[in-house]
């Protein structure tokens, strides 16, 4: 590559004409990118735009088909993550590369190149996590931690390597506003220390707030490089998706008095030493209502979802009521038969079987509730693949799921497209009750607004919806009422129009004593 001269100036990392071809798909097509030292550089793009492919090549987990990478003006071939780390590149993955059976400290030790004792690492990690405001117990097992806590491990372990360039893939999607603010302080600190950050995000306002420059990708090609602070969110979004993003409209359907989901003083003990117990949760969702449940990761969100969906049952049937029936002791399928639909948090391994095709995944979720459509009668219950195919094609069309091939395996779809399919799978049944946990986690702006609009449309058509989310923008966008989950206790739901960010922040911090209760009554 002697004919290609690196650019002048203080470039930390420069990429020229980087291309990656998978079969017939050009995932990256001649990408140019410059990251100067001392800057926070944004990488923007929709799902499947090629951002992940690009950073994987920068981090050495994928080999470029052609093109050249320069590190500090010298051409380099990055062939392994170890080599990337040795150069001074650290990476926080979107799909965490954590080991569930190991402790936090052991996970961190694995990514350290020098041999340090586990105890030493635990100590360092504890110090660093305090310093950057990312609280972590080094001896906890990852299996017991929430998504948000797992991300902290990723960030702390990258920081421990003392890198010159840190790549962050969708870092704030699981953080509260306060946590995100702290992260931005961390990033500012990192920049002040003379390091650079490559910041991948779908959140345009965030990029505008903290990034010095931005590079935008679409369909594997470069569509723009700009200073995000000189752009508007709409102009950035246009570069990303090629057309104006459809904003979510919340006309507000008629809310009737009919209660479709109800819990009465629902308590559930913690199942593991690290899980959260639910404390007298009172929840009422009426027809046409969307309740947004906000809260910091690990405050009982997954426990609440499990109890509502029937993954965990409770002894008293009337503790949980769906459409007027006490379902406390019923399983998931029985609750589905009553007209409920569920979308759990983890896409892979929980909402979908990664190695199975989309249509197979649909049968897995709905074989019981829609048996008459998808299965033949008689004792054998043979799957009617023609009906299954028709239904999954309908979902793909309705939700605009982009994929390669006719019926690909779930793992081949990007996160946002798989999520659209999973949500669409439930919506296709027109459920009268829908409970979703983190519906747009790690999903790009286009897909997220599509999913949110679908939730709103469902409520308007006369269903009750519960949205558990750590994304406050999302909650404000879709919810008619908002409640906050803190250490397993749920605050009283208040109309979204009365809620402010500050008030939610306070409730998240657990300040809902007598004063706030009085306040809430005044608000009504």
């Amino acid at each position, binding site marked *: 590559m002697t004919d290609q001269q690196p650019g002048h100036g203080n470039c930390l990392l420069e990429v020229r004409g980087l291309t990656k071809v998978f079969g017939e798909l050009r995932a990256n097509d001649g990408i140019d990118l410059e990251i100067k030292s001392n800057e926070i550089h944004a990488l923007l793009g929709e799902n499947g735009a090629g951002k992940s492919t690009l950073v994987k090549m920068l981090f050495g987990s994928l080999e470029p088909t052609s093109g050249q990478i320069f590190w500090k003006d010298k051409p380099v071939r990055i062939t392994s993550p170890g080599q990337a780390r040795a150069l001074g590149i650290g990476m926080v993955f979107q799909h965490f590369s954590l080991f569930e059976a*190991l402790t936090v400290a052991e996970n961190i030790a694995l990514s350290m190149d020098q041999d340090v004792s586990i105890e030493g690492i635990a100590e360092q990690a504890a110090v660093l996590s305090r310093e950057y405001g990312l609280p972590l117990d080094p001896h906890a097992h990852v299996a017991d931690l929430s998504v948000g806590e797992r991300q902290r491990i990723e960030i702390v372990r990258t920081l421990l390597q003392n890198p010159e360039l840190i790549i962050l893939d969708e870092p704030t999607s699981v953080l509260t506003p306060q946590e995100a603010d702290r992260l931005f302080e961390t990033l500012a600190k990192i920049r002040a220390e003379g390091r650079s950050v490559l910041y991948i995000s779908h959140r345009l306002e965030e990029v505008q707030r903290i990034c010095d420059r931005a590079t935008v990708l679409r369909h594997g090609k470069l569509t723009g490089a700009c200073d995000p602070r000189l752009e508007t969110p709409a102009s950035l979004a246009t570069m990303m998706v090629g057309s104006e993003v459809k904003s979510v409209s919340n006309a507000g359907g008629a809310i009737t008095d009919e209660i479709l989901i109800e819990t009465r003083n629902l308590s559930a003990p913690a199942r593991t030493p690290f899980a959260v117990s639910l404390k007298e949760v009172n929840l009422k969702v009426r027809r046409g209502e969307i309740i947004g449940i906000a809260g910091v990761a690990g405050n009982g969100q997954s426990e609440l979802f499990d109890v509502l969906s029937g993954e965990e049952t409770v002894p008293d049937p009337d503790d949980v009521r769906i459409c007027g029936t006490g379902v406390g002791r019923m399983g998931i399928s029985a609750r589905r038969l009553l007209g409920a639909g569920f979308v759990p948090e983890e896409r892979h391994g929980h909402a979908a079987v990664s190695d199975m095709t989309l249509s197979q995944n649909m049968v897995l979720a709905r074989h019981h509730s829609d048996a008459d459509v998808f299965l033949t009668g008689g004792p054998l219950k043979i799957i009617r693949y023609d009906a299954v195919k028709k239904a999954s094609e309908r979902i793909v069309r309705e939700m605009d799921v982009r994929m390669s091939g006719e019926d690909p395996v779930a793992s081949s779809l990007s996160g946002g497209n798989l999520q659209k399919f999973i949500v669409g799978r439930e919506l296709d049944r027109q459920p009268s009750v829908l409970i979703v946990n983190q519906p747009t986690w790690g999903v790009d702006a286009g897909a997220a607004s599509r999913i949110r609009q679908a939730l709103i449309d469902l409520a308007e058509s006369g269903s009750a919806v519960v949205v558990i989310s750590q994304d406050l923008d999302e909650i404000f966008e879709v919810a008619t009422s908002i409640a906050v989950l803190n250490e397993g206790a749920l605050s009283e739901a208040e109309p979204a129009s009365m809620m402010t960010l500050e008030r939610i922040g306070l409730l998240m911090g657990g300040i809902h004593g007598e004063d706030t209760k009085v306040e809430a009554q005044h608000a009504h």
Partner: protein
Amino acid sequence: MTLAEAILLTITTAATPLLLAAIGELVVERSGVLNLGVEGMIVIGAVVAFAAAQLTGSAYLGALFGMAAGCLFSLLFAFLTLTLVANQVATGLALTILGLGLSGMIGESFVGQRGVQLDEIAIPFLSSIPLIGNLLFNQDLIFYVSIFSVFGVSWFLFKTRLGLQLRAIGDSHGSAHALGISVIKTRYLAVMFGGACAGLAGAQLSLVYTPQWVENMSAGRGWIALALVVFASWRPLRVLAGAYLFGAVTIGQLHAQALGFGIPSQFLSALPYLATIIVLVIISRNRRLTLMNTPASLGQSFVPDR
């Protein structure tokens, strides 16, 4: 030697091959590979150890050759499943069948020969402790190795960096690869260690337990060892306890038969498997226990995506 001492001594002799084979398989499974060929590797180790001891006249050389044979045999499994990405279950079963057949062929001319027995090594002072001295410190080398291997493997898995990497690979080979850990190389080494352990277990059978060669002399011990790893929920110290428990059951079954107890011997033979099923049920009931204890990528083939 009292009767109790004699019985305890037979238990240690019966437990040692189970312990060795299981501790080897534990390392293999911790790395995420399921090698069902333990039975085959044991029997190959037994016949090669016996033959080498007969030909050289040295039981120690015999044991060494047994180990090497088990290791070499496991290399075949490693090549098929790790390099050629064949299905691990099918390949492991094939390895067992191949081992049983091949050992019969190799050992044909040795059937009925009187073998060389591995000497006992009395450890000075310790062996003269009353009661346990003779039992624990006047044993053959393979016994000492088997006990040492438990603590060695435990230390390796939980205290060393390589052990941590091996556990990480067993938990999620994709993530381990993303971190730059060499999945295939580590698994090769683990499988070979498992093979060497199984080979040594076989050598114990034909050089200590019954110093002669009989066809199929592994007699299902490979399967017990496999069950033992699950029984012990992939923990070395529990393997030690389990091996001695299963060893005691084996011996108890013989004595029960001799004394004419009412318990059918088939029931006692089935006991290790029954115990394993119970442990599996307990682990599987709790998602957290499963995540903590089971190597999550066990039995899955790994193909790096580049």
